[in-house]
């Protein structure tokens, strides 16, 4: 049965008309098979033009539509909408780009008209094979899994919980708050960090919509956007968190003393412990590796002391399954391992600290905290602060983390308050002080804190060694002079790196990492918090080093994205441009299942049937072009449609 095709040609005022002979193009179109009408119009995207197309469709009972106009990138959506309004399925439309790809680029009107004829012919031949397509709908779960209970994860969880969603917050440590829990003060306002974040941490515990899993990690992931099934593994705490009141009597009687990893190994803790005074949840947990109960000694000191019977040595690993619609990865950062940059002497020479260690020493809530002392117990007289340790250095980490300068300046400021008579020297190559507050923060410190700022020439000239019980620092100053200075304490500001679990999570969720090892943003500028895989979001330092304020911005952005896509009672709308597999033609080779970038093709080996997950499929067509049996149809870009287009262009 002949199909009635309507051809509309936009003159785009003079943009197309001046370069292409419209009359020639009209008579050419009218000679093609099944073309019922071919009409020019001054501006098809104007209100009059839209009416003109709509009337053309209804009056001529058009079944298919070809519009020769500007790029589909400009007005495909406009014309699809017009087709739908006139009762025509929008996928029965083909746009021919005779403006950007013909009229504007071909100097000779005759040649441009000939090229436009070929393009128009290809569109008409193609549209013959177009099929009406409808968007699919899929049920969705509006609940969310958040991995990492640092400031980014917590802010995301609280924001989403307010939207009446169940949020499952998974944290590998027994406490929440992440690195922010270490800080005494935050820059640039120098607010008390604990005062600022403590209400947030408590809200996590109190909010009925937030389900916190401490000492836990994500074990496996199944499903897709809107419908993920996640298995969480919870490691035993050996203390019942619902009865423990956090009195700490158990720690008092515990005979074991080990290095405390929460204070970067600076302080000490017991085998049963609460990491910090302000730890949330304020519950004890037992470190099985060091606890004597699990050794041959069968120590029961804590059990005998606990008034609440909270200690349970029988506690074991648990697997919890949750169903969610989206996943937020907010796994934060760790510091560049300074032992990899030998020139700084870190780990080899005493009294050389990383900035994070000093944060802990300065923190009044950590058992070891309060005053920075030389390890023999005396106060430091000469202190060096060194910027960019291992960063902006092609040998180690090339990028600038952007926040370490401010962090080190903050440390200088806090040290000055603690040690009013010490000599503090700050060695830098460049200072990174962007934004509306940072420069003023620096100016203030420079004017008031009596810190000697010394600009050095480069990383390579700086060498730290031990000389006569003091730390010697050799460097080349900005004019090239070699100099040596002596210090009691050296504080290094290392780069921020992705946290340890990043690679494992990338594999688990099938998302990519960037060249620096951070999670890749789907589109760094326009969609910075979405991973390339739909339904997976990244917030905070897991995607790039950033200050706390930016991590909160990320958290709110993620929350906004999720709130606007996964909506209670609404179905997910899925574009119909996806692949479909014909079971009759499929030869069970399973090549496509491995090629699909989204893992959208599933092969059921018991029924010998392949299937495409409509939510996961993005319609790229890689499977269709790789199927040796021609069993895969890529909707709207089928073999027949593309072949017809080629024939039309060359005819």
């Amino acid at each position: 049965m002949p199909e009635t095709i309507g051809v509309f040609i936009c003159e785009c005022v003079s943009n197309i008309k001046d370069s292409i002979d419209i009359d020639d193009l009209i008579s050419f179109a009218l000679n093609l098979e099944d073309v019922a009408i071919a009409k020019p119009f001054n501006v098809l995207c104007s209100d009059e033009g839209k009416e003109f197309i709509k009337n053309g469709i209804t009056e001529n009972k058009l079944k298919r539509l070809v519009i020769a106009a500007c790029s589909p990138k400009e007005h495909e959506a406009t014309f699809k909408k017009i087709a739908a309004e006139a009762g025509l399925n929008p996928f029965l439309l083909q746009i021919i780009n005779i403006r950007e790809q013909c009229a504007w680029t071909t100097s000779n009107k005759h040649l441009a008209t000939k090229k436009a004829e070929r393009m128009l012919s290809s569109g008409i031949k193609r549209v013959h094979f177009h099929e009406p397509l409808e968007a699919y709908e899929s049920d969705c779960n509006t609940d969310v899994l958040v991995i990492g209970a640092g400031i980014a994860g917590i802010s995301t969880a609280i924001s989403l919980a307010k939207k009446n969603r169940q949020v499952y917050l998974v944290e590998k440590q027994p406490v929440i708050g992440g690195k922010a829990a270490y800080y005494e003060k935050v820059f640039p306002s120098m607010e008390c960090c604990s005062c600022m974040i403590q209400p947030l941490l408590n809200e996590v515990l109190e909010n009925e919509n937030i389900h916190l899993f401490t000492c836990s990690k994500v074990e496996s992931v199944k499903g897709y956007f809107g419908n993920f099934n996640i298995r969480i593994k919870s490691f035993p705490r050996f203390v019942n968190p619902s009865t423990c009141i956090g009195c700490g009597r158990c720690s008092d009687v515990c005979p074991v003393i080990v290095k405390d990893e929460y204070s970067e190994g600076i302080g000490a803790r017991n085998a049963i412990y609460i990491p910090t005074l302000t730890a949330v949840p304020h519950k004890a947990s037992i470190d099985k590796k060091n606890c004597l109960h699990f050794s041959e000694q069968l120590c029961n000191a804590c059990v005998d002391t606990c008034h609440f019977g909270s200690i349970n040595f029988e506690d074991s690993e648990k697997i919890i399954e949750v169903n969610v619609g989206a996943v937020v990865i907010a796994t934060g950062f760790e510091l560049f391992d300074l032992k990899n940059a030998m020139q700084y002497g870190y780990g080899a020479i005493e009294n050389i600290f990383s900035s994070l260690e000093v944060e802990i020493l300065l923190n009044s809530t950590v058992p070891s905290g309060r005053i920075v002392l030389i390890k023999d117990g005396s106060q430091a007289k000469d202190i060096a602060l060194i910027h960019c340790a291992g960063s902006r250095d092609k040998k180690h980490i090339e990028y600038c983390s952007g926040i370490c300068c401010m962090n080190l300046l903050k440390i200088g400021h806090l040290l000055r308050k603690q040690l009013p008579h010490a000599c503090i020297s700050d060695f830098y190559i460049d200072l990174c002080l962007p934004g509306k507050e940072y420069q003023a923060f620096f100016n203030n410190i420079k004017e008031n804190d009596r810190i000697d700022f010394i600009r050095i020439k480069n990383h390579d000239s700086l060498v730290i060694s031990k000389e006569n019980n003091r730390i010697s620092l050799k460097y080349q100053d900005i004019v090239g002079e070699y100099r040596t200075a002596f210090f009691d304490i050296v504080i290094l500001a290392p780069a921020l790196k992705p946290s340890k679990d990043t690679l494992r999570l990338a594999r688990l969720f099938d998302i990519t990492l960037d060249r620096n090892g951070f999670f890749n943003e789907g589109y760094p500028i326009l969609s910075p918090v979405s991973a390339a895989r739909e339904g997976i979001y990244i917030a905070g330092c897991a995607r790039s080093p950033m200050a706390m304020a930016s991590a909160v911005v990320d958290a709110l952005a993620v929350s906004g994205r999720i709130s606007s896509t996964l909506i209670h009672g609404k179905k997910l709308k899925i574009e119909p441009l996806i692949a479909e597999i014909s079971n009759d033609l499929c030869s069970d080779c399973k090549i496509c299942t491995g090629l699909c970038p989204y893992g959208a093709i599933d092969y059921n080996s018991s029924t010998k049937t392949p299937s495409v997950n409509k939510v996961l499929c993005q319609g790229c067509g890689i499977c269709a072009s790789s199927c040796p049996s021609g069993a895969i149809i890529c909707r709207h870009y089928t073999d027949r449609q593309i072949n017809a287009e080629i024939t039309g262009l060359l005819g």
Partner: protein
Amino acid sequence: MDLFEPKIIGFLCNWCSYEGVDSAGRSQMTYPHNFLPVKVMCSGRIDTQFILKAFSEGADGVIVFGCHLGECHYKDGNYHMMRRFALLKKLLSELAIKEERIQLEWISANEKDKFVMIISQMVEKIRGFGPLKISTKSNQHR
């Protein structure tokens, strides 16, 4: 004698390369009319059969444009095309078609100058080769 005007089918992925060619248009840069565009969602969608079809229907050259490696909208579609392309070159030589008649290029949305340079050079190159003569049914009809 009239100058030989080759017909060159150009496959464009919907993302970087289609935008790149559009941006040449928006800048009103002139390039040879011989370039006849076919849009697909991803360069990974381009079946070798489409390219063979183009030659059998009278194309004198085929050029495939995709996003730069590592910038594919669908993660790695352009890598699939690159692998397929290497095999296709071998196949073409067995069909006695000069492998230089096909070309694979990566262009980003703002590389309009690069696109114009590539397509201009390709037209000149194919012009030098002359029309493709292959014995197919559609060829015999003409």
